[in-house]
């Protein structure tokens, strides 16, 4: 336990008058971890339901539970509730340690936590009721948008005020990614949500047509970039070296890939609009920057995987490391696939098909899901000061989760490419080979069933994790006081962020 060694070395130099005492707020991390697990289950259960509705439309149960209303519920729940709570858990845990300071305000942390959960609940109510803007990942209507903005500002204030009070001179690379996340999500959310209300739960955007499309995908793509990528890279940079007990592979690489990622990502949005009514220069720009994104993305992957150099044997007994490695590998795969999909000639085939869905879930299930699970298995025993109830169960989770992802993405690649090829096929006489749209639908139905099996396996893994965490918490000591530390006043020894994690 790194934190303990820090405090004991501090204690050695201690002279009573020159000592500062402080604690970390761990309760807030526990709350976010529990919320991650619960919403993860809910969001993926809805994922399995909509996966069933596609090949089996009888599963559309009445007005409020049709595919069209549940799909946004799925995406909002997994992105903002599951992945969202996970990155907040990561940020609240690691920021305090990297700054050697308690969060600036416990009250703000609580407002953030409960405010965010209230937003999720309101999403879960309003989306099935059909209150939606229709813009992907920004479906929530204006009152909820305002609530999101306010809660995010509280979070940002709390975070930056903690940075100000840090006892560590240099900010470790994880913090850079958190900064980029907090700033950019705020800008994107406000920029894309600007609308004029018509009534309490209905509004029209200030942008129209082509402009609206560009702004939406500037937002949509960067929701992927700054909600599903940068905070998870921060998570990786903190938890992977901890779990592997190795310093990060390359400090220089982290600088280069951080700045290029942050700069380039923003430009890539128009790759979602290739061959649409968006002007050509914009989509070409989007394509070029998307291809460039490959490099900084793989910079992150390499920095992650090479951190394990000399530690690969540890994978055998550690579900945490196994999850991290598979997660980072899927990050590498989806960020290779992404630039490929941005190339216009490939996008001509893949756009509108299940190929996109395959790409999404290789990132979402592989990278976001597995990084989150790895973090949870690492955090839970530490937060509740006990051992994981069953390591075997965690391993089983890893395996059925991995099989689930593979079934899911392989099914979607098959059906996506099938769709793409059938839609464009001409016969000898130059007529459409499959003029009836239903022909492609019937063709890919089997793949929908395979995806359902894959998704169900993946959800099964999540259920195992719920049981495991529940049992673990039951063995936890009754009282869980916040860890307390003493450091010499004005702890100014410039400590090296990289080594901070590694050697501590």
């Amino acid at each position, binding site marked *: 336990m790194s934190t303990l060694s820090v405090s004991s070395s501090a204690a050695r130099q201690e002279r009573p008058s020159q000592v500062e005492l402080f604690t970390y707020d761990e309760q807030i991390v526990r709350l976010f971890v529990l919320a991650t697990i619960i919403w993860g289950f809910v969001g993926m259960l809805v994922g399995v339901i909509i996966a069933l509705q596609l090949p089996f439309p009888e599963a559309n149960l009445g007005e409020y539970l049709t*595919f069209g209303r549940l799909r946004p519920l799925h995406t909002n729940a997994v992105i903002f509730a599951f992945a969202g709570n996970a990155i907040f858990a990561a940020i609240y845990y690691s920021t305090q340690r990297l700054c050697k300071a308690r969060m600036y305000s416990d009250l703000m942390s609580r407002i953030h936590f409960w405010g965010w959960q209230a937003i999720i609940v309101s999403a879960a109510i309003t989306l099935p009721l059909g209150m939606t803007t229709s813009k992907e990942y920004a479906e929530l209507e204006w009152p909820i948008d305002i609530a999101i903005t306010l809660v995010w500002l509280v979070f940002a204030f709390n975070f930056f005020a903690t940075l100000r009070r840090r006892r560590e001179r*240099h900010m470790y690379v994880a913090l850079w990614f958190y900064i980029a996340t907090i*700033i950019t999500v705020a800008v994107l959310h406000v920029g894309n949500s600007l609308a*004029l209300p018509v009534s309490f739960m209905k509004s029209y955007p200030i942008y129209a*047509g082509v*402009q609206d499309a560009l702004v939406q995908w500037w937002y949509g793509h960067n929701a992927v970039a700054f909600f599903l990528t940068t905070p998870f890279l921060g998570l990786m940079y903190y938890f992977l070296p901890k779990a592997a007990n190795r310093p990060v592979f390359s400090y220089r690489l982290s600088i280069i890939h951080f700045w290029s990622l942050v700069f380039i990502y*923003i430009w890539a949005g128009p790759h979602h609009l290739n061959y*649409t009514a968006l002007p050509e220069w914009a989509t070409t*720009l989007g394509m070029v920057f998307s291809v460039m994104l490959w490099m900084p993305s793989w910079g992150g992957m390499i920095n992650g995987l090479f951190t394990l150099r000399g530690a690969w044997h540890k994978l055998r007994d550690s579900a945490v490391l196994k999850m991290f490695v598979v997660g980072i590998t899927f990050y590498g795969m989806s960020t290779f696939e992404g630039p490929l999909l941005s190339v216009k000639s490939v996008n001509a085939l893949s756009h509108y098909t299940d190929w996109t869905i395959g790409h999404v879930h290789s990132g979402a299930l592989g990278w976001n899901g597995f990084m989150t699970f790895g973090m949870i298995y690492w955090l839970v025993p530490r937060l509740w000061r006990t051992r994981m109830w069953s390591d075997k169960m965690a391993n089983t989770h890893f395996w059925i989760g991995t099989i689930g992802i593979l079934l899911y993405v392989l099914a979607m690649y098959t059906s996506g490419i099938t769709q793409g090829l059938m839609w464009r096929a001409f016969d000898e006489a130059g007529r*459409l080979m499959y003029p009836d749209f239903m022909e492609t639908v019937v063709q890919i139905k089997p793949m929908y069933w395979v995806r359902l099996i894959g998704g169900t396996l993946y959800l099964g893994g999540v259920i195992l994790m719920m049981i495991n965490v529940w049992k673990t918490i039951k063995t936890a000591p009754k009282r869980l006081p916040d860890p307390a530390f003493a450091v010499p006043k004005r702890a100014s020894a410039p400590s090296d962020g990289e080594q901070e994690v590694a050697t501590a």
Partner: protein
Amino acid sequence: MKRFIKKDGMHRRLEGWPLLFTILVTISILIGGIVEFLPLALVPSTVHKIESVEPFTPLELAGRDIYIREGCNNCHSQMVRPFRHELERYGEYGKPGETVYERPFLWGSKRTGPDLARVGGKYPHLWHVRHMEDPRSTSPNSIMPPYDWLLRKDATLSDLPTKLRTLKALGTPYSQDEIDNAVALAEAQAQEIADEVAAQGGPDGLADKEITALVAFLQRLGTDIQQAPDATTAEAASTKETEDALAAEGDAP
């Protein structure tokens, strides 16, 4: 560069200044968005005006909002791309000038069902009524959900003046007359559609139901452009990429 990233170089110093660091991050993330958005917002010629494109009628607007409420955009795109196979399957490809009244845009990102940008006039009203009530009655094996309640629920028209006023504030050229009479205009159009449905042998009394508004919207899709062949071809000629795409398509087997 080396000076910047070496172990105790300038970047290390930067890591000690969160405020400056945050400012630099903010600048980095703003550049791309500004460069891509400003030309679209400031240069009017980026969106060619098409004379025949008109705002939605009040009833169509109500139908469009039902389309949004039901999340049809999760399965249907409304943006035909300039490929020969898409033109054959759906019709004319999407033009920027057609979209100027789309708030929000409904181009979609997934075709679980077919594109709808040109569906207006493809089927009689009654087909849509039957299809929405039970998609498998018109399209065996369809995986589209049924929307039978649209035939039972009354359409909300009373908020149309507010909606039109809001859109007008945003720039859609509705006249004061249209705004004041929005409800009456919608009711008249609904009656026409309902009568036609009944005449085609469909159910009676759908005039005040949601389905009628939705059908009005679906039947409108793509019809503006059909009236203006000149505008279409003129603009097509100006889009070089389109020509290339079509040419490449033509060669493909």
